[in-house]
């Protein structure tokens, strides 16, 4: 299988500190990568570097063989991310919140409806974001992944604050995404089940400081 996402010699510097270096991996269609490691090992930094928010100190990220730095907008169209913050506006309803993010990436209302349904938020569609519980806000953040198409999902501790049903729904959504040829890179402490995923332990990959 040819690699869609290939990372070579990636290094990240925060302040004056090397967070990680010489990170290599390759993911083909339908594959998943689980990032592990202790706090501060650079799981979030790696995800943000993959998303293009942090400029790598060294190394390259390639999508379908082309360096993503050459056309970052085209690459961003392939990527959806769920980081720590849920990006839910308290004064907009659940549906309005999701519709905005979907519109930015070419998702439509039907897709938004299905995404809400799938994460058990359909009943709350017209409720303002401000009254949601932490777990419900997290579900809404995850619904973004389903509301618009993207080949690569980046997730930072997606299951935080989720109840058991929601974790199951998330697991099923990821499985469907992969079955459709999608890629997943997820930082997690193992609270979601991922069938035959690759693993990258950043604690071990990290060079001696």
């Amino acid at each position, binding site marked *: 299988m040819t690699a869609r996402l290939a990372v070579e010699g990636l290094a990240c510097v925060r302040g*004056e500190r090397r967070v990680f270096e010489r990170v290599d991996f390759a993911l083909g269609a339908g594959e998943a990568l689980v990032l592990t490691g202790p706090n501060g090992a650079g799981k979030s930094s790696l995800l943000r570097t993959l998303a293009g928010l942090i400029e790598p100190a060294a190394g390259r990220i390639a999508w379908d063989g082309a360096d993503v730095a050459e056309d970052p907008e085209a690459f961003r169209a392939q990527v959806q991310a769920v980081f720590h913050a849920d990006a839910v506006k308290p004064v907009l309803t659940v549906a309005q919140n999701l519709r905005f993010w979907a519109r930015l990436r070419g998702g439509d209302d039907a897709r938004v409806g299905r995404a809400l349904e799938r994460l058990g938020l359909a009943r709350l569609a017209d409720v303002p974001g401000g009254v949601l519980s932490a777990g419900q806000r997290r579900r809404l953040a995850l619904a973004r992944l389903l509301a618009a198409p993207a080949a690569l999902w980046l997730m930072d501790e997606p299951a935080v604050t989720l109840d058991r049903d929601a974790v199951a729904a998330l697991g099923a959504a990821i499985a469907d995404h992969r079955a459709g040829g999608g890629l997943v890179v997820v930082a997690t402490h193992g609270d979601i089940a991922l069938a035959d995923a690759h693993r990258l332990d950043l604690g071990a990959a990290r060079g001696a400081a």
Partner: protein
Amino acid sequence: MSWHLLASPARFMRYSERIRPWASALALGAIAIGLYQGLFASPADYQQGDTVRIMYVHVPSAWMALFCYTAMAVSSAGYLVWKQPLAEIAARATAPIGACFTALALATGSLWGKPMWGTWWVWDARLTSVLVLLFLYLGYMALADAFDDPVKGGKAASILALVGFVNVPIVKFSVDWWNTLHQPVSVARMDGPTIDPAMLAPLLIMAAGFTLYYVALVIVRMQALVLERRVRALQQVAAGA
């Protein structure tokens, strides 16, 4: 553990240490000669009398105010384009020096204004645009120091320096316009149409002295900033390892 910041600065520390004593000595010499020439050896102005001698400090200060801002903007551009950390350190080291020259230009301008215009301050076009320049310096310094992470502060301040640099000529233009609108030629021009060579020589010597003084001072400040970053890097490594 030596990281990107420590590679080129090491060479900088070596070479700058060689330049520094020369720049300091030459600056001291030039300023001493310039002050003697300006304050004692040069003729008094036929209109302004001895008051004109303020010019030998005022005019070079005003030049340095602009020179430093330009140096700051060029260094900032160098940093943003080539990511050379020394360029950012140079810009940051320049800012307070430039601000002091600007303040000196304003203070001496004000001292000159009292005998010339009978008041400490007039909203003369030049004084006003130099005042705005001082605000730009203060903004740069405040922004650079407002961040917990000096690297981020340096980047943000570099962007600001460039924005300010584009804005300086526009401010100058608008202040000139505003001044002619509000103050039709009622104030004496600060400089005559021509300048006597006997006055020009000390002026240029003073300008050279100020520039050398800037070089000596910017080296000291850059060395201090490099050391400060090094300490910080070591602390971070200690905390993160």
